[in-house]
Protein backbone atom coordinates (compact mmCIF):
# COMPACT_ATOMS: atom_id res chain seq x y z
CA UNK A 1 0.00 0.00 0.00
CA UNK A 2 1.44 3.35 -0.93
CA UNK A 3 0.13 6.48 0.61
CA UNK A 4 -0.70 8.79 -2.23
CA UNK A 5 -1.33 11.81 -0.02
CA UNK A 6 2.26 12.15 1.14
CA UNK A 7 3.90 15.44 0.25
CA UNK A 8 7.24 13.64 -0.34
CA UNK A 9 8.39 11.67 -3.32
CA UNK A 10 10.33 9.05 -1.37
CA UNK A 11 11.40 7.22 -4.51
CA UNK A 12 13.33 10.28 -5.59
CA UNK A 13 14.68 10.94 -2.12
CA UNK A 14 15.90 7.38 -1.70
CA UNK A 15 18.10 7.74 -4.76
CA UNK A 16 20.16 10.28 -2.83
CA UNK A 17 21.06 7.71 -0.17
CA UNK A 18 23.74 5.25 -1.29
CA UNK A 19 22.89 2.74 1.43
CA UNK A 20 19.60 1.90 -0.25
CA UNK A 21 21.50 0.42 -3.17
CA UNK A 22 22.54 -2.46 -0.96
CA UNK A 23 20.56 -5.38 0.36
CA UNK A 24 20.74 -7.21 3.67
CA UNK A 25 20.35 -10.81 4.85
CA UNK A 26 20.87 -12.59 1.54
CA UNK A 27 19.42 -10.15 -0.89
CA UNK A 28 16.54 -8.70 1.06
CA UNK A 29 15.55 -5.10 0.52
CA UNK A 30 16.76 -2.91 3.39
CA UNK A 31 13.79 -1.54 5.31
CA UNK A 32 15.51 0.90 7.63
CA UNK A 33 13.22 1.83 10.51
CA UNK A 34 15.92 2.79 12.99
CA UNK A 35 16.46 6.46 12.22
CA UNK A 36 15.71 7.29 15.84
CA UNK A 37 19.06 5.70 16.65
CA UNK A 38 20.90 7.17 13.68
CA UNK A 39 19.85 8.37 10.26
CA UNK A 40 21.23 7.36 6.91
CA UNK A 41 23.24 9.93 4.92
CA UNK A 42 22.67 11.37 1.48
CA UNK A 43 25.58 11.34 -0.94
CA UNK A 44 25.75 15.15 -0.77
CA UNK A 45 26.62 15.01 2.93
CA UNK A 46 29.22 12.30 2.45
CA UNK A 47 30.78 14.29 -0.38
CA UNK A 48 30.76 17.55 1.53
CA UNK A 49 32.79 15.97 4.29
CA UNK A 50 35.11 14.18 1.85
CA UNK A 51 35.54 17.31 -0.22
CA UNK A 52 36.65 19.29 2.80
CA UNK A 53 39.44 16.79 3.36
CA UNK A 54 40.31 16.61 -0.32
CA UNK A 55 40.54 20.31 -1.03
CA UNK A 56 40.37 22.61 1.97
CA UNK A 57 41.73 20.72 4.93
CA UNK A 58 43.71 22.79 7.46
CA UNK A 59 43.41 23.76 11.10
CA UNK A 60 40.88 26.57 11.47
CA UNK A 61 41.61 29.90 13.17
CA UNK A 62 45.28 29.10 13.34
CA UNK A 63 47.24 29.37 10.16
CA UNK A 64 48.22 32.39 8.12
CA UNK A 65 47.84 30.49 4.86
CA UNK A 66 45.21 30.03 2.20
CA UNK A 67 44.11 26.54 3.25
CA UNK A 68 43.61 27.75 6.81
CA UNK A 69 41.51 30.62 5.49
CA UNK A 70 39.40 28.27 3.43
CA UNK A 71 38.97 25.81 6.28
CA UNK A 72 37.95 28.62 8.61
CA UNK A 73 35.46 29.90 6.07
CA UNK A 74 33.99 26.41 5.66
CA UNK A 75 33.76 25.84 9.40
CA UNK A 76 32.34 29.25 10.24
CA UNK A 77 30.04 28.97 7.26
CA UNK A 78 28.71 25.75 8.76
CA UNK A 79 28.02 27.63 11.98
CA UNK A 80 25.98 30.15 10.00
CA UNK A 81 24.00 27.33 8.40
CA UNK A 82 23.16 25.84 11.78
CA UNK A 83 22.18 29.28 13.10
CA UNK A 84 19.83 29.73 10.16
CA UNK A 85 18.39 26.26 10.68
CA UNK A 86 17.51 27.06 14.30
CA UNK A 87 16.67 30.70 13.57
CA UNK A 88 19.38 31.69 16.03
CA UNK A 89 22.31 34.07 15.79
CA UNK A 90 25.66 32.72 14.76
CA UNK A 91 27.56 33.29 18.00
CA UNK A 92 24.99 31.22 19.83
CA UNK A 93 25.96 28.04 17.98
CA UNK A 94 28.50 25.78 19.64
CA UNK A 95 29.80 22.67 17.91
CA UNK A 96 30.21 19.68 20.20
CA UNK A 97 30.79 16.06 19.34
CA UNK A 98 27.22 15.03 20.14
CA UNK A 99 24.09 15.92 22.05
CA UNK A 100 25.54 13.84 24.86
CA UNK A 101 28.55 16.13 25.05
CA UNK A 102 26.33 19.21 24.85
CA UNK A 103 24.23 18.11 27.80
CA UNK A 104 27.29 17.19 29.82
CA UNK A 105 28.89 20.53 28.97
CA UNK A 106 25.87 22.25 30.46
CA UNK A 107 25.63 20.03 33.51
CA UNK A 108 29.32 20.54 34.27
CA UNK A 109 29.05 24.28 33.70
CA UNK A 110 26.40 24.51 36.39
CA UNK A 111 28.92 23.45 38.99
CA UNK A 112 32.23 24.82 37.75
CA UNK A 113 31.83 28.56 38.02
CA UNK A 114 32.82 30.52 41.06
CA UNK A 115 30.24 30.97 43.80
CA UNK A 116 29.07 34.24 42.27
CA UNK A 117 28.49 32.76 38.84
CA UNK A 118 24.78 32.92 37.99
CA UNK A 119 24.78 29.29 36.90
CA UNK A 120 26.34 27.90 40.05
CA UNK A 121 23.99 25.29 41.53
CA UNK A 122 24.00 24.64 45.25
CA UNK A 123 22.32 22.67 48.00
CA UNK A 124 18.67 23.63 48.21
CA UNK A 125 18.42 24.24 44.49
CA UNK A 126 16.23 22.02 42.40
CA UNK A 127 16.70 20.41 39.02
CA UNK A 128 13.60 19.16 37.21
CA UNK A 129 13.68 16.47 34.54
CA UNK A 130 11.06 14.02 33.25
CA UNK A 131 10.60 10.30 33.49
CA UNK A 132 10.90 9.97 29.73
CA UNK A 133 14.42 11.35 29.38
CA UNK A 134 17.13 9.63 27.41
CA UNK A 135 20.05 8.72 29.69
CA UNK A 136 21.97 11.58 28.10
CA UNK A 137 19.49 14.07 29.53
CA UNK A 138 19.15 12.33 32.87
CA UNK A 139 22.47 11.06 34.19
CA UNK A 140 24.38 14.35 33.75
CA UNK A 141 21.74 16.02 35.95
CA UNK A 142 21.84 13.18 38.47
CA UNK A 143 25.55 13.72 38.73
CA UNK A 144 25.17 17.47 38.99
CA UNK A 145 22.71 16.95 41.84
CA UNK A 146 25.15 14.61 43.57
CA UNK A 147 28.07 17.02 43.14
CA UNK A 148 26.21 20.00 44.45
CA UNK A 149 23.65 18.61 46.88
CA UNK A 150 20.84 19.95 44.70
CA UNK A 151 17.59 18.04 44.50
CA UNK A 152 16.54 16.12 41.40
CA UNK A 153 12.80 15.78 40.80
CA UNK A 154 10.80 14.81 37.73
CA UNK A 155 7.56 14.94 35.84
CA UNK A 156 5.94 11.52 35.77
CA UNK A 157 4.62 9.90 32.63
CA UNK A 158 0.96 8.94 32.33
CA UNK A 159 -0.11 5.52 31.04
CA UNK A 160 -0.80 7.18 27.67
CA UNK A 161 2.82 8.29 27.53
CA UNK A 162 2.25 11.98 28.20
CA UNK A 163 3.88 14.12 30.85
CA UNK A 164 1.69 14.45 33.91
CA UNK A 165 1.54 18.22 34.32
CA UNK A 166 -0.96 18.15 37.17
CA UNK A 167 1.72 19.01 39.74
CA UNK A 168 3.66 21.45 37.60
CA UNK A 169 3.56 24.30 40.12
CA UNK A 170 4.81 22.13 42.93
CA UNK A 171 7.45 20.46 40.79
CA UNK A 172 8.78 23.66 39.30
CA UNK A 173 8.91 25.70 42.47
CA UNK A 174 10.89 28.75 43.47
CA UNK A 175 13.99 26.64 44.24
CA UNK A 176 14.07 25.38 40.68
CA UNK A 177 17.10 26.46 38.65
CA UNK A 178 17.03 24.06 35.73
CA UNK A 179 14.27 22.31 33.83
CA UNK A 180 15.75 19.77 31.40
CA UNK A 181 13.46 17.84 29.13
CA UNK A 182 13.15 16.23 25.78
CA UNK A 183 11.21 17.84 22.97
CA UNK A 184 10.11 14.48 21.66
CA UNK A 185 10.46 11.14 23.40
CA UNK A 186 12.80 8.75 21.62
CA UNK A 187 10.71 5.85 22.92
CA UNK A 188 7.09 7.00 22.89
CA UNK A 189 7.12 9.56 20.12
CA UNK A 190 5.37 12.01 22.46
CA UNK A 191 5.95 15.68 21.72
CA UNK A 192 6.00 17.55 25.01
CA UNK A 193 3.93 20.67 25.74
CA UNK A 194 6.72 23.19 25.99
CA UNK A 195 4.70 26.34 26.29
CA UNK A 196 3.29 25.63 29.71
CA UNK A 197 6.56 24.24 31.06
CA UNK A 198 8.67 27.09 29.72
CA UNK A 199 6.25 29.66 31.10
CA UNK A 200 6.34 28.12 34.54
CA UNK A 201 10.12 27.68 34.49
CA UNK A 202 10.70 31.28 33.54
CA UNK A 203 8.20 32.42 36.12
CA UNK A 204 10.46 31.01 38.83
CA UNK A 205 13.67 32.08 37.08
CA UNK A 206 14.81 28.64 35.95
CA UNK A 207 16.50 27.96 32.62
CA UNK A 208 14.99 25.42 30.24
CA UNK A 209 17.31 22.92 28.54
CA UNK A 210 15.71 21.24 25.57
CA UNK A 211 16.90 17.91 24.18
CA UNK A 212 15.91 18.29 20.55
CA UNK A 213 17.64 15.10 19.32
CA UNK A 214 14.37 13.64 18.12
CA UNK A 215 12.71 16.85 17.00
CA UNK A 216 15.24 19.07 15.24
CA UNK A 217 15.88 16.49 12.48
CA UNK A 218 12.16 16.17 11.78
CA UNK A 219 10.44 19.50 12.28
CA UNK A 220 11.19 23.15 11.81
CA UNK A 221 12.73 24.67 14.91
CA UNK A 222 12.63 28.32 15.87
CA UNK A 223 14.46 28.82 19.13
CA UNK A 224 12.82 32.17 19.73
CA UNK A 225 9.35 30.72 19.36
CA UNK A 226 10.17 27.73 21.52
CA UNK A 227 11.28 30.12 24.23
CA UNK A 228 13.79 27.69 25.72
CA UNK A 229 17.23 28.75 26.91
CA UNK A 230 19.48 25.95 25.69
CA UNK A 231 18.86 23.39 22.98
CA UNK A 232 20.89 20.52 21.60
CA UNK A 233 20.78 17.91 18.89
CA UNK A 234 23.14 15.44 17.24
CA UNK A 235 24.22 15.62 13.62
CA UNK A 236 24.06 11.89 12.97
CA UNK A 237 20.30 11.72 13.56
CA UNK A 238 19.75 14.59 11.11
CA UNK A 239 21.34 13.10 7.97
CA UNK A 240 24.68 14.46 9.15
CA UNK A 241 28.00 12.85 10.02
CA UNK A 242 28.79 11.12 13.27
CA UNK A 243 31.02 13.02 15.68
CA UNK A 244 29.17 16.33 15.60
CA UNK A 245 26.52 17.86 17.85
CA UNK A 246 25.09 21.31 18.29
CA UNK A 247 24.54 23.26 21.45
CA UNK A 248 22.54 26.42 21.16
CA UNK A 249 22.23 28.87 24.03
CA UNK A 250 20.90 32.40 24.37
CA UNK A 251 23.83 34.73 23.92
CA UNK A 252 23.21 36.56 27.19
CA UNK A 253 23.45 33.20 28.96
CA UNK A 254 26.46 31.94 27.06
CA UNK A 255 28.25 35.10 28.07
CA UNK A 256 28.42 33.94 31.67
CA UNK A 257 28.50 30.19 31.16
CA UNK A 258 31.78 28.72 32.43
CA UNK A 259 33.84 26.72 29.93
CA UNK A 260 33.93 22.93 29.94
CA UNK A 261 36.82 21.58 27.88
CA UNK A 262 40.09 23.47 28.30
CA UNK A 263 42.82 23.77 25.69
CA UNK A 264 43.76 25.58 22.53
CA UNK A 265 41.61 28.26 20.87
CA UNK A 266 39.24 28.72 23.82
CA UNK A 267 41.54 31.08 25.68
CA UNK A 268 42.08 34.79 25.91
CA UNK A 269 45.36 34.66 27.82
CA UNK A 270 47.41 31.91 29.41
CA UNK A 271 50.20 31.79 31.95
CA UNK A 272 51.63 28.77 33.73
CA UNK A 273 49.20 29.13 36.61
CA UNK A 274 46.13 30.67 35.12
CA UNK A 275 44.09 31.33 32.05
CA UNK A 276 41.20 33.51 30.90
CA UNK A 277 38.60 32.68 28.31
CA UNK A 278 37.60 33.75 24.84
CA UNK A 279 34.01 34.78 24.25
CA UNK A 280 31.39 32.28 23.08
CA UNK A 281 31.29 30.20 20.90
CA UNK A 282 35.10 29.87 20.96
CA UNK A 283 35.14 29.42 24.73
CA UNK A 284 33.32 26.13 24.33
CA UNK A 285 35.32 24.73 21.42
CA UNK A 286 38.74 23.75 22.73
CA UNK A 287 41.23 22.25 20.33
CA UNK A 288 41.19 21.66 16.60
CA UNK A 289 37.47 21.19 16.04
CA UNK A 290 35.50 18.56 14.12
CA UNK A 291 35.72 20.71 11.02
CA UNK A 292 34.83 18.18 8.35
CA UNK A 293 31.86 17.02 10.39
CA UNK A 294 30.60 20.58 10.81
CA UNK A 295 30.77 21.00 7.05
CA UNK A 296 28.91 17.71 6.59
CA UNK A 297 26.26 18.77 9.07
CA UNK A 298 25.70 22.05 7.24
CA UNK A 299 25.16 20.08 4.07
CA UNK A 300 22.68 17.81 5.85
CA UNK A 301 20.66 20.74 7.19
CA UNK A 302 20.64 22.23 3.74
CA UNK A 303 19.28 18.95 2.38
CA UNK A 304 16.55 18.90 5.01
CA UNK A 305 15.65 22.52 4.36
CA UNK A 306 15.48 21.92 0.63
CA UNK A 307 13.12 18.99 1.06
CA UNK A 308 11.16 21.01 3.60
CA UNK A 309 10.74 20.17 7.26
CA UNK A 310 6.98 20.69 7.19
CA UNK A 311 6.74 18.10 4.46
CA UNK A 312 9.00 15.73 6.33
CA UNK A 313 6.91 15.92 9.52
CA UNK A 314 3.69 15.48 7.57
CA UNK A 315 5.11 12.50 5.71
CA UNK A 316 6.28 10.83 8.89
CA UNK A 317 2.94 11.37 10.54
CA UNK A 318 1.18 9.58 7.68
CA UNK A 319 3.46 6.60 8.18
CA UNK A 320 2.89 6.74 11.91
CA UNK A 321 -0.86 6.79 11.41
CA UNK A 322 -0.59 3.81 9.12
CA UNK A 323 1.53 1.87 11.58
CA UNK A 324 -0.68 2.70 14.57
CA UNK A 325 -3.74 1.59 12.60
CA UNK A 326 -1.98 -1.60 11.58
CA UNK A 327 -0.88 -2.37 15.13
CA UNK A 328 -4.41 -1.72 16.39
CA UNK A 329 -5.46 -4.62 14.16
CA UNK A 330 -2.98 -6.99 15.74
CA UNK A 331 -4.57 -8.30 18.87
CA UNK A 332 -1.36 -9.11 20.66
CA UNK A 333 0.29 -5.78 19.85
CA UNK A 334 0.53 -3.15 22.55
CA UNK A 335 1.71 0.37 21.76
CA UNK A 336 3.62 2.41 24.34
CA UNK A 337 2.96 6.06 23.73
CA UNK A 338 0.13 8.12 22.26
CA UNK A 339 -2.22 6.11 20.08
CA UNK A 340 -3.25 9.14 18.07
CA UNK A 341 -0.98 11.33 15.97
CA UNK A 342 -1.72 14.48 17.98
CA UNK A 343 1.49 15.96 19.45
CA UNK A 344 3.39 12.97 18.28
CA UNK A 345 6.33 12.20 16.04
CA UNK A 346 7.24 9.22 13.91
CA UNK A 347 8.57 6.89 16.59
CA UNK A 348 6.44 3.93 17.62
CA UNK A 349 7.32 1.53 20.43
CA UNK A 350 5.38 -1.64 20.93
CA UNK A 351 5.41 -5.22 22.15
CA UNK A 352 3.78 -8.23 20.55
CA UNK A 353 2.40 -10.77 22.99
CA UNK A 354 4.98 -12.90 24.68
CA UNK A 355 7.54 -12.50 21.92
CA UNK A 356 10.50 -10.79 23.51
CA UNK A 357 11.34 -7.59 21.63
CA UNK A 358 14.83 -8.86 20.99
CA UNK A 359 13.44 -11.95 19.31
CA UNK A 360 10.93 -9.92 17.37
CA UNK A 361 13.71 -7.59 16.23
CA UNK A 362 15.78 -10.55 15.17
CA UNK A 363 12.93 -12.02 13.14
CA UNK A 364 12.29 -8.65 11.48
CA UNK A 365 15.99 -8.41 10.70
CA UNK A 366 15.80 -11.74 8.93
CA UNK A 367 13.21 -10.08 6.67
CA UNK A 368 15.50 -7.09 6.04
CA UNK A 369 13.64 -4.86 8.47
CA UNK A 370 15.90 -2.88 10.81
CA UNK A 371 14.25 -1.81 14.08
CA UNK A 372 15.61 -1.23 17.52
CA UNK A 373 14.82 -3.22 20.62
CA UNK A 374 15.59 -2.71 24.27
CA UNK A 375 15.14 0.19 26.66
CA UNK A 376 16.35 2.73 24.11
CA UNK A 377 18.57 4.42 26.69
CA UNK A 378 15.49 5.45 28.64
CA UNK A 379 15.55 2.65 31.13
CA UNK A 380 13.56 4.36 33.91
CA UNK A 381 10.77 4.88 31.38
CA UNK A 382 10.55 1.24 30.26
CA UNK A 383 10.64 0.23 33.91
CA UNK A 384 7.82 2.64 34.65
CA UNK A 385 5.75 0.75 32.10
CA UNK A 386 6.66 -2.46 33.89
CA UNK A 387 8.57 -3.93 30.97
CA UNK A 388 12.21 -4.58 30.16
CA UNK A 389 12.08 -3.66 26.52
CA UNK A 390 10.07 -2.65 23.49
CA UNK A 391 10.50 -2.91 19.77
CA UNK A 392 10.78 0.50 18.19
CA UNK A 393 10.19 1.62 14.63
CA UNK A 394 11.21 5.16 13.78
CA UNK A 395 10.59 6.90 10.49
CA UNK A 396 12.38 9.42 8.36
CA UNK A 397 11.96 11.09 5.03
CA UNK A 398 13.23 8.07 3.07
CA UNK A 399 10.68 5.62 4.47
CA UNK A 400 7.45 4.90 2.65
CA UNK A 401 4.11 3.22 3.16
CA UNK A 402 5.29 -0.07 1.65
CA UNK A 403 7.82 -0.28 4.45
CA UNK A 404 5.12 0.07 7.07
CA UNK A 405 3.32 -2.75 5.33
CA UNK A 406 6.53 -4.78 5.38
CA UNK A 407 6.85 -4.17 9.11
CA UNK A 408 3.27 -5.23 9.77
CA UNK A 409 3.75 -8.33 7.62
CA UNK A 410 6.98 -9.00 9.50
CA UNK A 411 5.18 -8.85 12.83
CA UNK A 412 2.60 -11.33 11.58
CA UNK A 413 5.45 -13.51 10.34
CA UNK A 414 7.14 -13.40 13.73
CA UNK A 415 3.92 -14.39 15.46
CA UNK A 416 3.68 -17.33 13.11
CA UNK A 417 7.36 -18.20 13.50
CA UNK A 418 7.47 -18.23 17.26
CA UNK A 419 4.03 -19.83 17.65
CA UNK A 420 4.80 -22.78 15.41
CA UNK A 421 7.91 -23.75 17.26
Amino acid at each position, binding site marked *: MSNSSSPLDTAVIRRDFPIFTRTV*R*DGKKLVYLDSGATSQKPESVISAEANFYRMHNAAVHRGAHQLAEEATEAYEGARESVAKFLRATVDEIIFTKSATESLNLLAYAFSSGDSLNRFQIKRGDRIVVTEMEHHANLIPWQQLAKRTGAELVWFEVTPEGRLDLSKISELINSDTRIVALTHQSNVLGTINPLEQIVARAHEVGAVVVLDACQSAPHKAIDVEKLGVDFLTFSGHKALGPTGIGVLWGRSELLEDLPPFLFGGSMIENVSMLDATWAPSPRRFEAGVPNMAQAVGLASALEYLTNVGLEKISAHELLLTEQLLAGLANIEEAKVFGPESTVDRGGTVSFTVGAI*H*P*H*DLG*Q*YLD*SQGIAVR*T*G*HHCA*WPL*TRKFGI*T*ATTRASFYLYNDASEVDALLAGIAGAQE*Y*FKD*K
Partner: protein
Amino acid sequence: MELDSLYQQVILDHYKRPLHKGLSKNSGVQVHHINPSCGDEVTVKVSVNDGVVAEVTWDGVGCSISQASVSMMSDLVTGLGIKEANVILDEFTALMQSKGTSAGDPEILDDAVAFAGVSKYPARIKCALLGWMAFKDASVQAQAQ
Protein backbone atom coordinates in the same frame (compact mmCIF):
# COMPACT_ATOMS: atom_id res chain seq x y z
CA MET B 1 15.59 -20.34 6.87
CA GLU B 2 18.83 -18.86 8.18
CA LEU B 3 17.06 -17.75 11.35
CA ASP B 4 16.47 -21.37 12.32
CA SER B 5 20.17 -21.71 13.06
CA LEU B 6 19.62 -19.18 15.81
CA TYR B 7 16.27 -20.37 17.08
CA GLN B 8 16.87 -24.11 17.34
CA GLN B 9 13.88 -26.04 18.61
CA VAL B 10 15.65 -27.03 21.81
CA ILE B 11 16.28 -23.36 22.59
CA LEU B 12 12.66 -22.42 22.15
CA ASP B 13 11.65 -25.42 24.25
CA HIS B 14 13.82 -24.25 27.12
CA TYR B 15 12.44 -20.75 26.69
CA LYS B 16 8.86 -22.01 26.95
CA ARG B 17 9.49 -24.60 29.64
CA PRO B 18 12.53 -23.40 31.54
CA LEU B 19 14.31 -25.71 33.97
CA HIS B 20 15.32 -24.81 37.51
CA LYS B 21 13.53 -21.49 37.26
CA GLY B 22 12.44 -20.02 40.59
CA LEU B 23 15.02 -19.27 43.23
CA SER B 24 15.61 -22.05 45.73
CA LYS B 25 15.05 -21.50 49.44
CA ASN B 26 18.24 -23.40 50.22
CA SER B 27 21.32 -21.48 51.17
CA GLY B 28 23.62 -20.48 48.36
CA VAL B 29 25.28 -17.55 46.66
CA GLN B 30 22.93 -15.38 44.70
CA VAL B 31 24.03 -12.91 42.03
CA HIS B 32 22.10 -10.58 39.79
CA HIS B 33 23.37 -9.88 36.29
CA ILE B 34 22.06 -7.44 33.79
CA ASN B 35 22.57 -6.88 30.10
CA PRO B 36 22.76 -3.11 30.06
CA SER B 37 22.22 -2.76 26.34
CA CYS B 38 18.80 -4.44 26.32
CA GLY B 39 17.68 -4.57 29.95
CA ASP B 40 17.57 -8.34 30.29
CA GLU B 41 18.16 -9.52 33.84
CA VAL B 42 18.93 -12.79 35.49
CA THR B 43 19.38 -13.81 39.10
CA VAL B 44 21.32 -17.02 39.61
CA LYS B 45 21.64 -18.85 42.92
CA VAL B 46 24.35 -21.46 43.28
CA SER B 47 25.26 -23.77 46.13
CA VAL B 48 28.52 -25.65 46.09
CA ASN B 49 29.24 -28.57 48.42
CA ASP B 50 32.69 -30.13 48.59
CA GLY B 51 33.62 -28.79 45.19
CA VAL B 52 30.42 -30.01 43.59
CA VAL B 53 27.68 -27.80 42.18
CA ALA B 54 24.83 -28.94 44.37
CA GLU B 55 22.07 -26.68 43.14
CA VAL B 56 21.55 -23.97 40.55
CA THR B 57 18.31 -22.07 40.41
CA TRP B 58 17.49 -18.81 38.72
CA ASP B 59 14.94 -16.22 37.85
CA GLY B 60 14.93 -13.60 35.16
CA VAL B 61 13.35 -11.75 32.30
CA GLY B 62 14.73 -11.65 28.83
CA CYS B 63 14.76 -12.90 25.32
CA SER B 64 14.54 -16.53 24.30
CA ILE B 65 18.29 -16.81 23.90
CA SER B 66 19.15 -15.47 27.35
CA GLN B 67 16.43 -17.41 29.15
CA ALA B 68 16.99 -20.67 27.31
CA SER B 69 20.70 -20.39 27.89
CA VAL B 70 20.42 -19.94 31.65
CA SER B 71 17.89 -22.75 31.79
CA MET B 72 20.17 -25.14 29.91
CA MET B 73 23.20 -24.01 31.88
CA SER B 74 21.53 -24.68 35.20
CA ASP B 75 20.60 -28.16 34.07
CA LEU B 76 24.03 -28.93 32.62
CA VAL B 77 26.19 -27.94 35.57
CA THR B 78 24.08 -29.23 38.43
CA GLY B 79 25.81 -32.21 40.01
CA LEU B 80 29.14 -31.57 38.33
CA GLY B 81 32.41 -30.80 40.01
CA ILE B 82 33.33 -27.12 39.77
CA LYS B 83 36.22 -27.99 37.48
CA GLU B 84 34.01 -29.89 35.09
CA ALA B 85 31.47 -27.08 35.14
CA ASN B 86 34.21 -24.65 34.25
CA VAL B 87 35.29 -26.81 31.33
CA ILE B 88 31.77 -26.53 29.93
CA LEU B 89 31.70 -22.81 30.63
CA ASP B 90 35.00 -22.31 28.78
CA GLU B 91 33.85 -24.43 25.86
CA PHE B 92 30.59 -22.52 25.68
CA THR B 93 32.37 -19.17 25.78
CA ALA B 94 34.73 -20.28 23.02
CA LEU B 95 31.76 -21.43 20.95
CA MET B 96 30.12 -18.03 21.33
CA GLN B 97 33.26 -16.31 20.13
CA SER B 98 33.69 -18.59 17.13
CA LYS B 99 31.80 -16.34 14.68
CA GLY B 100 29.98 -19.30 13.25
CA THR B 101 33.11 -21.34 12.55
CA SER B 102 32.56 -23.94 15.27
CA ALA B 103 29.72 -26.36 15.84
CA GLY B 104 30.68 -26.93 19.46
CA ASP B 105 31.69 -30.21 21.06
CA PRO B 106 28.54 -32.17 21.97
CA GLU B 107 30.61 -34.35 24.27
CA ILE B 108 31.18 -31.35 26.45
CA LEU B 109 28.23 -29.09 25.70
CA ASP B 110 25.47 -31.61 25.20
CA ASP B 111 22.29 -29.78 24.15
CA ALA B 112 24.06 -26.41 24.47
CA VAL B 113 25.61 -26.98 21.02
CA ALA B 114 22.24 -25.67 19.86
CA PHE B 115 23.63 -22.21 20.62
CA ALA B 116 26.28 -22.55 17.91
CA GLY B 117 24.11 -20.44 15.61
CA VAL B 118 24.17 -17.54 18.07
CA SER B 119 27.83 -16.95 17.36
CA LYS B 120 26.88 -15.66 13.91
CA TYR B 121 24.81 -12.91 15.50
CA PRO B 122 27.24 -10.77 17.48
CA ALA B 123 24.48 -8.78 19.17
CA ARG B 124 23.10 -11.98 20.69
CA ILE B 125 26.28 -13.43 22.14
CA LYS B 126 25.81 -11.42 25.32
CA CYS B 127 22.29 -12.82 25.64
CA ALA B 128 23.58 -16.38 25.49
CA LEU B 129 26.39 -15.64 27.94
CA LEU B 130 24.33 -13.73 30.51
CA GLY B 131 23.42 -16.74 32.64
CA TRP B 132 26.82 -18.36 32.29
CA MET B 133 28.60 -15.26 33.48
CA ALA B 134 26.26 -15.10 36.44
CA PHE B 135 27.01 -18.73 37.24
CA LYS B 136 30.74 -18.07 37.00
CA ASP B 137 30.45 -15.11 39.32
CA ALA B 138 28.30 -16.98 41.84
CA SER B 139 30.36 -20.16 41.83
CA VAL B 140 33.61 -18.28 42.40
CA GLN B 141 32.00 -16.54 45.35
CA ALA B 142 30.58 -19.81 46.62
CA GLN B 143 34.00 -21.44 46.58
CA ALA B 144 35.51 -18.50 48.39
CA GLN B 145 33.10 -18.99 51.27
